[in-house]
Structure formats: C-alpha cells, structure tokens
C-alpha cells in the first residue's frame, strides 16, 4: 500500500528525501506552534483522514459529527488528506511541528515515522477493550521496536476476482475459503480457462513487489530475514521463488496470463475483465467496489481466495490502515479517547463497509453484514484470520530496495528479460547493499 512519494522521486540522486528533511528536523521542530485550546478550556483535535470513496468519506464525517455532538469539550476537526501524498505531507508536518493529532495512514508507511520518533507509543494510551478486540498478529503490523505506533483497523486480503460464467463453463473445481486451490491447481485452472481469446488470468504488475512478497507468505517465502543481532538481510530461497515462478511461467511459458497487463494497475485490467479477455484477476478485496460500480449489467463475477501453499497455507501479508497519534500532540489522551470511540465495533463495521475492506476487530468481523455472500464479503471475512504483517513493512530501507532494486528486477523477470538466477542475484546482492546502509 506504500505510495510513491514526490520527495523521493525528486531526489533520486544521492540524497533520499527523508534524509534531507530529517536533517532539518531539529531546526523545524523548534518552531512548533502553540496548540489549540480555547479560552474556555475547550480542546480542538485535528484528525487527518485518508478516506476517499464516497461511502467512506460519509462514514468518517458522520462519526466525527457524532463525537463532536457527544463531546463538546473535545472538538475534532476533520481534515481530508490523500493517499497519494500523505508521506511527504506528514513528513513536513512532523518536522514543522504542524502534524495532525490523529493520523490515518497504513502500516507500511509508519516505519519511518515510528523510528523517527514522530508517533506516540499507544501502549499505555489505549483502553483494554480495544487492545483485546484486535488479534496479536494484527497488532504486530503496527509494532515497531516494541512500541505500538498505530491502531490497525482496516485490512484487505488479495483475492481472485473471477468471471463466474467462464468459471462455471470450465471443468475446474471452484475453490472456497475452506478448500482453496493450491498454486499448482491455480496454474492448471488458468490453463483450462485460457481459450478463444480469453486468458486465464491477468496479473496487474505495475507495482510487482508487494503483490509478490505478500502472496509468497503462503509458500513460506520471507525474503527479509532478521538475525539475532536485529539486522535484516535479504534472501531469495526456493520458498521465495515459488510464486514469482508461477507468474513468470504463466506469462512466458504456457501463456495462460496476458502479457499486456504487466504494466497495468489493478483498475486498468477491469475493462478487459468485463469484456471477457481475462477469466480471473488477482486484486485487493476493496476493488469489488469498482467492479460493482463499473461492471456491465448482467455481468456475473465471484470472489475466490488466493491460492494456498503447502498444507493449505493461506497466509498472506497485509499492511492494514491505521490510526496513530502524533508524538508532539499535547492531547494524546483525548486523541486516544477519540480513537476508542471511532473504532467501536459498530463504527468499525461502518468504516469497513464504506471502504469495502475488512475490519480488524474481532467483534466487528462477526457482524452479519460482513458475512453475506453478496459481493464476496463472506469469502473475504473467512480469510481474515490468515492475514499477517507484510514481510517488508518493518524493514528500514525497504522503500529504496523496492524502488531501486526489486521493482525493476521483478519487472524484467516477469517480462522474460532476465532469468531466475539474475533476479536472485540482484534482489539479494544489490538488496543487501541497500539495507546495509540503513543498518549501520
């Protein structure tokens, strides 16, 4: 879920943007302004939300309005942010002492901020109710150096969105969350579905790294290995290679995957999917909203679980959306109270439905609205227990490894320009050089 940053893009030279800005951090932090408390003692908190879909924005604004109506002494100002620019915007806000009190982001974007000391440790701030609601493996996604820096509240598995008519017409077994395809069965199914101008699968691989890494968890792929000294090294062993090999073979071997989608994002594949060019598209769970909005009338589609690894292993990596509190907010307790209110189980359900994602809270996840077969909700909800922290998200230097090493290497591998040997060499050797700079 990490977004490309303008700052990073503009300093592709010798200095990283984060480094440049961090160098000026102490200077800027010295300029922190006075905080917002009215003469009558009323507090105003700033909540920067990244909600962007219509229903999601409505749910966010409604919850803020409900809080404000019930808490006249602690007012929350809703501020709209954007996924596209949140990293740069937050970085400069932190540096200048202008950060919002309550921050919406994703766990894969938090590492820099958490290690930089910009985010409050929530361990002692959150009520036990909320702590108990979210499973330990999900808390793990927002835990950095032993401190919790965000409350993970929404997450989405990667699923296979399939053309139901083509699937039912074929001879393939239709997988369920309880009995998913193995990767081998998935390859066979894609081959079976490839006929008459239709490809079995379309892999939108404009950004191939997170898809590859997160799906590789099911085959035991880790890529990043933390040693006893806490240092992380890159490895690319047989378990890590299984998923990339499948994709590579589908694209260049049996041609059951369309090569034209290699440079596409998820949304770009939808016209072809609706037009019957692709039988299946691996996408994030929230893409269902676009499919509901855009699919031609009468188009039948279904949500299938992603293939499982050996022993039916359905683990996959996710980077949940989080709510954090700025370290320099003087009203951290009040901000934590708002987060507690905002993430009560019924509210989490509203937010999840607005974003077409899964809530992390166990009570919210049991809500019947999320277990309907309509639009594949039940399939997604059944996968929630298998979601794990994305392998890379706590690794410092991962964004650089991803942009400079892994993305071009994987793109070349998938396009057939290089083989597995060279892919491995580049990911590991070049990758470890990058990570070493962050771990001195």
């Amino acid at each position: 879920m990490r977004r490309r940053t303008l700052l990073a893009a503009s300093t592709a030279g010798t200095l990283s943007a984060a480094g440049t800005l961090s160098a000026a951090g102490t200077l800027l932090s010295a300029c922190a302004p006075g905080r917002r408390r009215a003469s009558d003692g009323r507090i105003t908190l700033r909540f920067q939300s990244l909600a962007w879909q219509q229903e999601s924005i409505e749910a966010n604004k409604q919850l803020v309005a409900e809080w404000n109506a019930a808490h006249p002494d602690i007012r929350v100002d809703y501020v709209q942010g954007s996924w596209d620019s949140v990293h740069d915007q937050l970085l400069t806000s932190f540096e200048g002492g202008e950060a919002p009190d309550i921050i919406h982001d994703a766990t894969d974007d938090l590492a820099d901020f958490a290690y930089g000391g910009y985010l409050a440790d929530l361990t002692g701030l959150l009520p036990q109710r909320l702590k108990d609601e979210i499973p330990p493996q999900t808390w793990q996604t927002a835990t950095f150096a032993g401190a919790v820096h965000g409350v993970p509240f929404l997450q989405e598995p990667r699923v296979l969105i399939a053309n139901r008519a083509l699937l039912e017409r074929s001879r393939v077994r239709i997988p369920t969350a309880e009995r998913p395809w193995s990767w081998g069965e998935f390859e066979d199914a894609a081959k079976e579905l490839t006929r008459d101008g239709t490809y079995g699968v379309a892999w939108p691989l404009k950004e191939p790294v997170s898809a590859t890494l997160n799906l590789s968890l099911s085959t035991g792929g880790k890529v990043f290995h933390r040693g006893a000294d806490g240092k992380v090294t890159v490895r690319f062993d047989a378990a890590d290679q299984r998923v990339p090999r499948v994709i590579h073979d589908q694209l260049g071997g049996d041609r059951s995957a369309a090569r034209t989608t290699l440079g596409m994002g998820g949304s770009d594949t939808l016209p072809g999917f609706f037009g019957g060019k692709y039988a299946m598209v691996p996408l994030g769970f929230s893409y269902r909203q676009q499919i509901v909005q855009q699919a031609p009338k009468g188009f039948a589609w279904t949500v299938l679980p992603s293939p499982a690894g050996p022993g039916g292993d359905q683990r996959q990596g996710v980077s949940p959306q989080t709510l954090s509190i700025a370290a320099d907010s003087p009203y951290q307790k009040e901000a934590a109270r708002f987060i507690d209110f905002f993430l009560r189980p019924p509210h989490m359900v509203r937010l999840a439905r607005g974003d077409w994602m899964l809530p992390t809270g166990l009570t919210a996840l049991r809500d019947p609205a999320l277990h309907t077969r309509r639009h594949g909700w039940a399939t997604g909800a059944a996968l929630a227990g298998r979601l794990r922290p994305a392998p890379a998200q706590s690794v410092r230097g991962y964004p650089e490894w991803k942009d400079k090493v892994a993305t071009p290497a994987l793109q070349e591998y998938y396009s057939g320009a290089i083989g597995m040997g060279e892919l491995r060499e580049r990911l590991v050797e070049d990758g470890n050089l990058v990570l070493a700079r962050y771990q001195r």
Partner: protein
Amino acid sequence: MSTRLTARRRAARTGQYLALLGYLVFLAFPLLWLVSTAFKPPRELASLHPGWIPDHPTLDNFRQAFDEQPLLRSAGNSLIASLAAAAITVVIATPMAYVMARHHRSPLSRAATGWIVVSQAFPFVLVIIPLFLVLKEVRLIDSLSGLIMVYVVWSLPFALWMLAGYARAVPRELEEAAAVDGASRLRTLISVTMPLLAPGIVATALFAFITAWNEFFFALVLLKSPQKQTMPVILTHFIGTEGVADLGPLAAASLLATLPSLVLFAVIQRRITSGTLAGAVKH
C-alpha cells in the same frame, strides 16, 4: 520548371498543414478525453471499447465531485493565489527585465542572468526546508499570503528571463526617437516601450498564473487548514490506495480545474496578438 516548383511548394505547404493538424490533434486529445470521461457513467468508464461520445451522458460525476470535496472553495483559493502571484510577478519582473535588457553587458546583469539559469535547476526538495523555516518565522505557514510569496519567488527567475527577451526586442532607436521628439524618460517608457512590451507582459503574467494554478507540492506542504487548500491538492483526494482513482469525479473536477486557464488563454490571446501588431506598426 516553375510549374514543378509551384507543385513542390504546394506539397510542402500541405505537409506543413498536415503536421500542424497532427500537432493540434495531439494537443487536443487529453482535453477531449477529459471532457468525454467527465460525462460518462461508471459502466462506460470501464468499457473495453470506449467511445468518444458517452452513450448515456450524465452529470453524476460533477454532482459526486461537488458533494465529496469543496471544489468551489478550493478553486477560489487557487484563483486568489494565482492572480495575485501573476500580478506581483509582473510588477516586479517588468522593470528588472528592462534594466537587464538595456544593460545586458554590465557585470551585474550578467551575474543576474547566471543566477536565473542556476535557479531553474533547484529541485523542490532543496527549497522547501528553508522556505518552510522562513515562512514559519514570519508566521506565514498555512496562509495564502505565504503561498503567494512562494509562487512569486518561484516564478520570478523564468518570468525575468522571458521578459528580458521581449525587452531586448524593443529597438533602442524608438526610444531615442521619442527623446529627440522631446519625450521625457518616463514618458518614453510609458508611451513607447510599455505598449511594445505588452505582449511579453501578458505572456509572462499568463506563465506565472498557470505555474501557480497548477502548483501542487508547495500548497500541499504549506497549507494545513482544509479551508485554505487549493485545487491541485483537492484533486488528489479522488485518488485512493495503490493509485486507484475515482475516475469519473476526478475527471469532472479536473475539467473544472482546466476552465480558468482556458478562459484566460481565450481572453488574453487576442491581447498578445494585438500587442505584437501594435509593435510592428510602430516600428
């Protein structure tokens, strides 16, 4: 022989027109596609064979865009910032450019020219920290005034470069003739030089306006209050995780964002042309 020459000339002229037509189509394509997308319902947006003209045109994208985001307010903020930046840039740049043009051999003018060239190479990331510090000191963070100041500073080097070129093209002889006719230095500047510089001033103002109108990064970083955000910042709110965009409303909002520039071009284009002609006749 002459028939062959004429035929060759005609062929060359036809080729030129075809090239021009191709260029115009190339330029118009994104705008036409934007218009088409803004009026398409979601199902047509995801069609495998998209058409230019929507089968079922709708205003829903505009409604949704206005419902979700404060477009008018942000357009107002952008307009204030851009107009002010353009006006201030021109006021500052015009006399400076004139001096640079008339004394282009002086060391100061040469140094200024060198500095202008170098300043164009600065990436945003190098400028944003000192700017942030300075604006913070003078309490201009989160204010349109601060943003306007940044836009003026950012546009000024190129504006100077542009205007100095126009100023150099104004013949000295005209000013000397005016002096011979008894016009004072100020009168010469106002009555002779400025009308000839008018197209350059207008073009420079347009450049400064469009630079400010399209600017995203400074506005993103320097403005904190939702009430002050400008149009480019608001447009990013239609983009979600992994670059997924709410395409219809985004196109509708983007179309609205292009209108002021188009209107300004339409109005100003005539001014540029008439100014050029005025210069030619005078000369």
